Structure formats: C-alpha cells, structure tokens
C-alpha cells in the first residue's frame, strides 16, 4: 500500500471518529518511517474535512468535540516521535471570560475548536479582570484576543479593555473577537472590537481568516 493510500485511511478514520483504527494506522505510518510532523499534516487535513461537514450541516458542534478527542489520541501515539521543534501553530490567541462573569461553556467550546484548528490557545479562564487581560496581551503578543461575556452587566468590559489596550499602545497589534449570547453586532461595533462571533464555529472561521 502506498503512503497516500494509508494517509487517506488516516483521514477517513479521523473523519469517522474511529479512534482505534486511527491509532493503528498512525502507528503503521510511523513504522513505515513517515515523519510524525507529516502525519500531523494528514490529521489536519482530516480536521478540515470535519470542518467542511460542519459547514454543510452534516456535523454539529458535538462532532467537532469528538473529532478533537479522536485527534488527541492520535497525537498521543505521535508524541514520542515528534522532534523538539514541535508543530508550527497557525497563530496565537489569548482568551478570557471578562470580569464579573464565570460562564464558560461557550468559551470552552471555542477554545477547544481553536486548538484543533491549529491555534496556540492561552486560556486565562473566567472572571478575568481587564488589567490581567491587557497584561497577557503584553506578555504573549497574541495575534488575536478573544473575549466572552454572557451577562449584559459585563459587556461594558469590552470597550474598557479596548480603551486600556489603546492606552498601552497594544490595540493595533491584536485583533479582537467577542462572543456571548447577549452580545449584538451593534454593541460590538460600539465597543470598538474587530468582530462579533454569533457561534464558536463562526469565531474560529473569523480567526482563520485573520491569521
């Protein structure tokens, strides 16, 4: 069997969430001497297919979660064989639920999907003060800052953080995407952020287009 055929089986196993077969085929590729980094590239292609199926309505957010779990198991097989350089990331995002708000379901879905999309995710958690978020942007120099809030009382944190980033001279260096059920396009515009994502998947697509 040619490597291309094996790669197709790896992609198919990931897309169908067949974790046992995926691990066997991943190991088979390693045994053939294929670089672990190259296999990760094949897995990423599989994740793209999962993403396409989500876009067409065949898959759902739950499918994306399962795909991430499936991929994680394949990566465990590959881990001992990775070179010290690690895998190149698509970009870096600092993510936080803003001060006063500890809702995290949406944020966690988003960070999971960003991780499987190849981003380095620095998740600051929930109820994060604006000062801590700004300090994290200064420290990590991310491409993107993601802010989440569910409660209307905490939406005012968005313009506050934008203002603080401007004062620190950091605003022009980072794109800002916000999300949360009570966020509207109108409010996001008023807050001075770059984008408002109505769903985790929309947020990932926005970030992919930026980086």
């Amino acid at each position, binding site marked *: 069997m040619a490597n291309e055929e094996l790669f197709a089986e790896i992609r198919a196993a990931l897309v169908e*969430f067949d974790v046992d077969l995926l691990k066997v085929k991943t190991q088979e590729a390693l045994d053939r001497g294929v670089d672990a980094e190259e296999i990760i590239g094949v897995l990423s292609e599989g994740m793209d297919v999962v993403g396409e199926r989500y876009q067409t309505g065949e898959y*759902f*957010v*739950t499918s994306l*979660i*399962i795909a991430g*779990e499936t991929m994680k198991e394949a990566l465990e097989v590959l881990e001992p064989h990775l070179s010290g350089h690690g895998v190149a990331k698509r970009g870096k995002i600092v993510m936080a639920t803003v001060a*006063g*708000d*500890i*809702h995290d*379901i949406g944020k*966690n*879905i988003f960070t*999971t999907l960003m991780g499987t999309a190849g981003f380095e995710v620095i998740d600051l958690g929930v*109820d994060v003060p604006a000062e801590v978020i700004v300090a994290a942007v200064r420290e990590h120099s991310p491409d993107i800052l993601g802010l989440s809030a569910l*409660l*209307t*009382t905490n939406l005012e944190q968005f313009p506050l953080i934008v203002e603080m980033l401007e004062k620190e001279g950091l605003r022009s260096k980072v794109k800002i995407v916000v999300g949360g*059920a*009570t966020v*509207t*396009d*109108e*409010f996001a515009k*008023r807050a001075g952020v770059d984008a408002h994502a*109505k*769903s*985790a998947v929309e947020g990932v697509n926005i970030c992919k287009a930026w980086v």
Partner: protein
Amino acid sequence: MYEDLMAVYEKKEGSPLVFQPRLRHWYDVNYNAGTLPERYHGMYLDEVYQDLGVPPREVWGPRRIGSELSGYFALNAVEGDDVEVWTRRLSGYMGMSEDDYLVTEYRTPVGSLRQVQRYTEHGTSLMNVEYLLKDLDDLKVFEHILGERSYRWDQNRYEWGKKRYGDAIPLRANLERSPLMWLIVGIMGFKKTVTMIWRHPQEMKEFMGILEAEHVKQITAYRGKPVAELNFGDNMHHDLCPPPYFKEYVTPFYQRVMPRVHAQGMVASSHFDGYLKQLLPLVGETSLDGLECVTPAPQGDVTLGEMKEGMGDMFLRDGIPAVYMCPWTPVETLESHVRELMETFYPRLILGISDLLPANGDVERIRLVKEMVEEFNAEL
C-alpha cells in the same frame, strides 16, 4: 389574572394577555450592590412587583438561587439513610460574596461525589466549577443516591404561598432538566458528557434511564396536588444538544413522561433559552404544551415567524430579548418587537423577558411594556 393564565394552559381564546416578567435577579444584584433605583429603596421584591403593576412568575419557585420571591418548590427531596450530604462554604458566613464557593460532598457506602460551585453576580447566582460526575464510577454512586432519594409534597409551604398569591397565579412547579441536559448543564458538563456518550454509549443511555426514573418519581409526587404547570429547566441550545441528540435522547424522554403529566391534569413546559433554529422543527414531537424563554434575534438565532412556525400551537412564555430591556437598545426597537410578538403569539402567549430583567436593565421599561399590554387588552 388566575383565569387568564389558566386560559393559556387550556387553549381558551379571548382572555387578556398577562405580562409576567422575572425581576428577582435584577432586584437581588442591585440590592446587594447598593444600586437599586431610589424609588425602590426600602421595598421588598413583591412590593416592587406591585409598584410596577405586574405579577411575579414563580411565587412557588424552588427556594434556591434563580427562583422568584421566597419560593416554594412544592417538593422536598429526602436522601437515603446511608447517604450523607456535606456542604462547605469557603467564606460568607454573613451574607454572600463574589469569591464564595459552595462545596457539596455526597458520602455513601459505594463511594463519594464532590461538586464545587461558585457564587457570582454579587452572590445571587451559582455556577459549576467542578461538576458532580466525572467518570463511570461516579455514575454508580449517583445511581445509588437516586435509588434511595424520595420526594415529599410540602403542604405547609404551599398553604403559605396560596394565601399570598394563590388567587392571582396558578401553581407552577419545577422539575429537573431532561436527562441529557441535566448531565450537560447540571452535573457532568458539556464536553465530558459528549465524550462519555461517544466512548460509553450504552452506559450513558442506561444512566439517562435512571435520571428519567427520577422524573417519574417527581411527577408522581405531584399527583393529586394543586399544580397547574410543571416546568423542565432544560436550558436547551442546539450546539449543546444538536438534532441527532435531541431525536435520540430528548424527544423519546418527553414522549414517555408527558402522558403522565397530562394524565394528572397538568401541562408542562421547558426552558429553551439558547440557539434553537435546528431544534424548533422538532419540538412538536415532544408533546410539551409550551416553551419558556425562546429568545428571538438579535439575542437568539430565530425570528418570531420561525418561532411560531416551529412551535405551532404550543404556548410561549416570555419572548422579549433581555438586551431590549438594556438602555443601549432604543425604546422604539423594544416597542415594535413587543407589538409584533403579541400579534404573532396571542392567545398562546404569556409575555415575559427571555429570560429575565438583566441587572443593568432599565426597570422603567417594565412599566412601558405593561402599558402596551393594557392597550392591547383594551382592544380585545
């Protein structure tokens, strides 16, 4: 008003529309933060309701965070003799603070469970920090707990609430979320539930059957009691529960339990407060009588027309996006939405905010909507 609400349950036409907003969250947060409008200084919540001229939603709420007024769950849960429940607050002996945590441990002969929740929003809300169920072993422990748990109707508290509001509002009692959403939102968390269903489908399906048996116990405990409506607190959202899950776990559950509800002469609704575009075409198969808190765009993802099409003859409770009660939304936007909402859903409507007045909402908009409802009713 009692008859007007019953008319919605009984599908009668011609009764005045009732506006029944939830205010407790707004009241509690602003009370604790010292930011209640001066007009309401010195007033308890029910006096605020009286001042605004609107009735409360849940006089008999679950007497815990999220319920209106002093609350009446109608049922008391009683744990088995060999189940110890230990709770620990990390701070906040005198009142509640933002940084307070509630740790709950169940200790049983077959194992222990631990849950950590954090008080938020000035101590008025509780969020899971550590979910109760983490692996298959925990399911066995919870099964043991539920197997011994029973429910008792609390007549004394019912009588108290009846004297206070019984002539105005039919008793609406709460149930747990349907089994899948109970897991996702309440006791296991979203990601863990999804991966557990994927890795252990049979065990999880059987466990959801055990949760369903708990609903049967609760519904049975309400039999013969003066309850008009039962409410499942699902927090439904199509990202958390996509159509395949809904068809496999949610619809069959409701199809099995709703005949019990109807046989007891009651109606039932469920709290659907997330994105619902993918689920509204499926809700008709549940046999639910109504949906609570369905949220139209721009906060939700559906139009009023899509809501009506999906819900058909079910009644809608609420329907005003909470963000329309916030100062940054033009009043005209709120007015035109309320007008369209009433025209679309009346008489299958109990008007309210999806799902409550936000802490930074403008309480005077309650008065405005109340006046719109009075004008609407005057033209009936």
